[in-house]
């Protein structure tokens, strides 16, 4: 289930993100290294979602280079499809029957992994908030794309499920270029090959922080503690 072909890096060059006269980013140049997971941290409203949408090619001026899998901040499940069909949405939309048939197995495995094995036929309206988020996560991972963009994918999960799914995600993201927005510095330290903190209006990205070791890291690792403090300080707006 890992992605074998070479994943591309993601490049942002001189980008400008604005809504009306609200400038979110200006002259933004950033690189997300190929085949690695970058975690984005930043105060609420700084522009993380906007950057992710830019990377997904969803903002008007944004280019759309390579296929991506995008998980938005809200779950965006379609109320008229079962959980399984929601997870297979991409394959259904692309209308490739053979791919769809072979993806179904993958979807079931993923739904099992996120703990929804017994809810395949439920409608999203029958799920709890966390279940919905897990279904959306399964859908994103089922897409099997070289680039994966995820906006707060674990926000509604309990601590235990969260750790399990961080592991799952880290495993499935191996070899892909992933950008993951999170509000939990520890989570960023566990699943990210590198971490960038966005701050300011218009925002700028802080230097890449690259904890040692392989992902997923153990949250109990004392080496992460110092970095955690540094990240929180950066978030507070204090230079590291």
């Amino acid at each position, binding site marked *: 289930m890992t992605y074998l072909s070479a994943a591309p890096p993601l490049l942002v060059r001189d980008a400008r993100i604005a809504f009306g006269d609200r400038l979110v980013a200006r002259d933004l140049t950033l690189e997300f290294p190929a085949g690695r997971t970058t975690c984005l941290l930043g105060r609420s409203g700084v522009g993380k979602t906007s950057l992710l949408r830019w990377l997904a090619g*969803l903002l008007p001026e944004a280019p759309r280079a390579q296929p991506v899998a*995008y998980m*938005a901040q809200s779950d*965006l499940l379609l109320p008229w499809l079962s959980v399984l069909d929601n997870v297979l949405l*991409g394959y*259904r*939309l692309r209308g490739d029957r053979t791919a769809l048939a072979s993806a179904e197995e993958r979807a079931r495995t993923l739904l099992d992994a996120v703990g929804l094995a017994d809810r395949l036929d439920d409608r999203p309206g029958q799920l709890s908030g966390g279940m919905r988020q897990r279904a959306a996560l399964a859908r994103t991972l089922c897409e099997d794309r070289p680039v994966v963009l995820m906006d707060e994918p674990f926000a509604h999960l309990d601590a235990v499920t969260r750790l399990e799914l961080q592991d799952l995600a880290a495993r499935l993201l191996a070899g892909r270029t992933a950008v993951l927005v999170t509000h939990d510095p520890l989570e960023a330290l566990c699943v990210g090959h590198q971490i960038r903190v966005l701050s300011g209006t218009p925002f700028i990205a802080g230097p890449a922080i690259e904890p040692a070791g392989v992902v997923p890291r153990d949250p109990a690792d004392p080496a992460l503690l110092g970095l955690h403090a540094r990240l929180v300080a950066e978030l507070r707006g204090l230079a590291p």
Partner: protein
Amino acid sequence: MRPLITAVGLLLGWEALVWVSGVPSYILPPPSRVLAVLVERSDLLLGEAVWTATEMIVGLLLGLVLGATLAIVFAASAGWRRWALPLVIVSQAIPVIAIAPLLVLWLGYGMASKVAMAALVIFFPVVSALYDGLRRTNEGWVDLARTMDASPRAVLLQIRLPAALPAFASGARIAAAVAPIGAVIGEWVGASAGLGYLMTLSLARGQTALAFAALVVLCLLGLALYYATDWAARVFVPWQSQGE
């Protein structure tokens, strides 16, 4: 039970209206007389009702299919929208007398021309409501589909269309309610038949009670069609809201 009580209540209200307002019975006959005629001429009424009901149902089905198709085409193609949307709007302004000979010329004196006219009246609420619904899909879903490399066609058919089904149901309800009048208007085209014909005839001949008996049958047909459509809409479109 309840619809029955309602019906009896309405009939009593009508009877009271006749007595209180003193409307002459050749303008508004009391329901008691209409009911008597209804029973007496049930044979005649039934025959015409079958004709009109057929027009209504075929017109509604045609209107639904045509309306849905057009709405989807409009949502899919700006070109079509630019050319055909004004045409569709304009089509609603055309009185039957202006094009009745044209319809007969093309479709003959039979039911086809009547149904065509009925469908012309019925299809519009469907186009309009569904097209509106297709335009106001939750943009998040559309964005998601775009990241999944969905073709515009797939977005339309698999995202926008199901999301717009409640709007379609809404349009279908309106269409069902106007189907009777659509059928009656359609009866102005081609040869004389149906409840609308019976009504015109009996009104011109001073048989107001018979005309109102025909009207009662028409209303019952209309109610039946409306509630059938409403029921179908509830069963087949269980999700209600447009957004999340």
